[in-house]
């Protein structure tokens, strides 16, 4: 029943991003049917020595009473895997042929992922909103209220300016001091080698990088019934285009671009996923959990 709330067209009617995220995640989780591959229950995993700054709520006070040593009790789902979402908020993300624009869809995806990470997995999560420079940076954390800071950051992320991957990625590397999962959500209107060149350093840092290539269905299969004048949302450049070109050459170019980007990101050790705004959001969540499990697998055997 809740599965239908993964549909972006349904989510568009919900004004609160918090509620959107909760609806998506709850629906998604309910649809997993206790799959053993995605354990995020409270099953005990290991003890870890307390270090200053750790949350005192996770201290095993019974063990402390017996041994007078302060250990943190960790469960399988509590293995930390820092999640950082890089959200493209350039003007091109304003485009939408249906009820949901690319920016709205991107917000839903990001909000759902952040909710899943913080609320269900207790992972520190952060957000970087960028266009041709970094417009907002929320440091990854598990502190209380982090989720709402992140959601507020998403709410404030209004499309503006042009896309430039170089500067924000360079800036982001300054803050990246811990391995984790980096999700880049963008429509990637740039040359594939340029994109890969900009994002690749994150991978070198040891993080798992996933590119969510977000497009509107009409961008992949535009329907142009007559000669029209098209306006670039980022540059305001105008161009007269005829339907014959759109039906043939444009689609070939777009297919080539998608294929090239996919090939290059995978060659660089990154994941690539194409999302369209008319599809449900579960694919993005699934990808996140898959990555997290693979990162958290050592902790499953590290029981002391």
């Amino acid at each position, binding site marked *: 029943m809740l599965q239908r709330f993964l549909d972006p067209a349904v989510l568009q009617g919900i004004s609160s991003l918090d509620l959107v995220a909760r609806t998506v995640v709850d629906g998604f989780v309910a649809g997993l049917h206790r799959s053993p591959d995605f354990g995020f229950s409270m099953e005990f995993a290991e003890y870890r020595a307390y270090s200053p700054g750790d949350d005192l709520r996770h201290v095993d006070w019974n063990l402390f009473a017996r041994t007078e040593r302060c250990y943190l009790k960790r469960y399988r789902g509590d293995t930390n895997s820092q999640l950082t979402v890089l959200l493209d908020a350039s003007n091109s993300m304003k485009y939408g042929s249906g009820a949901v624009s690319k920016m709205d869809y991107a917000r839903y995806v990001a909000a759902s992922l952040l909710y899943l990470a913080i609320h269900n997995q207790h992972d520190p999560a952060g957000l970087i909103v960028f266009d041709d420079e970094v417009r907002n940076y929320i440091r990854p954390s598990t502190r209380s209220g982090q989720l709402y800071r992140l959601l507020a950051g998403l709410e404030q992320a209004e499309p503006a300016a042009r896309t430039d991957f170089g500067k924000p990625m360079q800036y982001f590397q300054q803050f990246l001091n811990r391995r984790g999962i980096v999700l880049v959500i963008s429509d990637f209107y740039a040359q594939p080698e340029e994109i890969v060149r900009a994002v690749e350093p994150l991978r070198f840092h040891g993080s798992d990088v996933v590119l969510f290539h977000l497009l509107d269905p009409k961008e992949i299969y535009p329907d142009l019934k007559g000669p029209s004048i098209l306006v670039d949302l*980022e540059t305001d450049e105008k161009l007269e285009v005829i339907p014959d070109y759109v039906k043939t050459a444009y689609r070939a170019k777009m297919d080539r671009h998608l294929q090239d980007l996919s090939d290059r990101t995978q060659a660089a050790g990154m994941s690539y996923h194409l999302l369209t705004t008319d599809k449900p959001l579960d694919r993005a969540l699934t990808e996140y959990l898959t990555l997290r499990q693979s990162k958290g697998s050592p902790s499953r055997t590290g029981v002391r």
Partner: protein
Amino acid sequence: MGFLAPWFLAGLAALGLPVYVHLLRKQTTVPRPVSSLMFFEQGTQSSIRHRRLRYWLLFALRTLLLLLLVLAFAQPFFRHKTVLASDKLLLLAVDDSFSMNAKDGGTVRLDEAKRQALDLLAHKAGGQKAQVIALDGQMRVLTQPVADTRVLRAAVEGITPGEGHGSFGELGRGMRAMAETVHTPMELDLFSDMQESNMPGNFADMVMPGNVSLVLHRIGAGAAPNWTVESVQAPGQLVDTKKARVIAVIAGHGTPAASRTASLVVNGKVLATKKVDVPADGRATIAFDGLDVPYGESRCSVRFDGGDPFPGDDAENFAVKRADPERVLFVHQASDNRSALYFGTALGAAAQASFVLQTITPEQAAEIDPTKYAFVVLSDVPAVPSVLENVLIRNVESGGSVLVAEGMSAGHREHVPVFGGTVADGHFYARGAGGAGYVTAGAMDSSHPALKDANGWQGVKFFYASAVDSGSARVAARLADGTPLLMDRQMGEGHVLLFASGFDNATNDLPLNPAFVAFIDEASRYLAGAERMGGPRAVDSYVQLRNPVNAAAASKTSVDVIAPDGSRPLSLKEAATAQSFQLSRAGFYQMRFANGRDALLAVNADPRESDLRPIADDTLKLWTGATAQPESPVTGQEQQQSQQGGSHVWWWIMLLAAITAVAETAVASGYLGTEREAI
């Protein structure tokens, strides 16, 4: 080619509008936003070039539409002088009213008018059609539109002097009626003395329709001094020739003070002659005492030697009938002697009395023949024998008359004898509580022949009156409370006059009032029929030959009319069916009506024709509708040359513009449909 409204050509500047729309204005389409033009390339479809071709077609249509509209409003025309001359219908209207009999320098005005009309015909273009019209009180079309000059000349020469009153209003109405069927341009040439009295009361009646150009040809030297016998007052029927008195009014129009000798002529013999001083441009009254005429009908006139250029109006005809006094049957109750006394005294005191009263009671009236009496009076009779009533009704239907005075006896019966109405109630005003005890006369219809002099009725007190249902009868007088007092009902050829009160001084004090004599005199002459047939009449007036209500019965007998010249203007069929007859000539008409009565009618020309003052020049210019148009007559050839008419083509242009508008709409719709698809 020319333009009637060249200022509208300034509208050609509107042609800049389609030029701007199609050539100068940048084509705007709603651009579609896309995320990026990264994968798009510039492309121009061949169909756009096709559409631009349609733009040119639309541009041409729109430009043509504006051009045609501007041209249509500028009203272009083509001059075709030759064609115009033959297309224009020439109307020659000759005024043959009575005033055209006046002379100017020895020449009769009508002759001069005919001469000028013939001159115009002589210069008419060969193929041009013309029509001849005679104008007096009516517009008489004498010919069909023909080009044959001989027919037209014969029609003009055949116009004889008339004696009617000219009316330019009738001319205007006739031309407007003609313009409804004739749509080609017409030129109306009016040959008239332009008498001011010929103008109608409303100037709009004279206005000519749009396709008629009026050319006036004034005949005569203008206002000429003229004396005339304006009116004659004489008894239509008399008994005592010594008591008769003839009063004539001699008027001068634009005349100096002068002394004139007037004569009273009876059957061609001068009876009396008198001198009268007529003031400058004024009137003088002259009276002849005694009118010694023989028994029967006499043809009388008052005439004088005017010494003016219009001798035709120096005499006024009137007819007089001398007869023994007619008897009037007065039926009254045996106990009522006052009614007969008052009535008989009033009848005898009337200045033109020619009646003798015979009084009887209803019982004595059972076997009388009412046809032997001028009329019958039923005064306060409680019960009329049915035999007498039926005889009286038959007499009335065949032309006789009855005067019924209700009196106090009306309360005893519901039915009014002969008159036929019912008595609803009897009003005893003397018994009214809190009232004045009487009621006075209210509305009086002074147009009724029996109430011509109704001024003295205001002081009369009525103490009793019957409330009679008037029905279809004409109410000639009412009391102040609205009760009908005097009613007139026509039955067949005759009349029944009902007086709702009585002739004694018990029901009212009218018999004691001087107005009673005048009332009895006028009512008697009206009921005797003398009033209806007496008195001079004007030319062009109508006389009723038979009663239209009883026309079916009256058609069994034919009427007879003998005109002043001795001819019989009615055919046998007309004599059997005609209900009225127009008196078209001045003089004496001998007539026999359907009811068997004979009458001699005196007919005179309209006195308004005697005033020869012409219409002011400004008014004439206003009538012709063009102040620049020459009033003096010009030759026909010159006139045709000066005419700059043309065949108007604006409505053809409007038709073309309508077609263009439809084509523009079709092309524009196709274009807009394509554009919507593109967006």
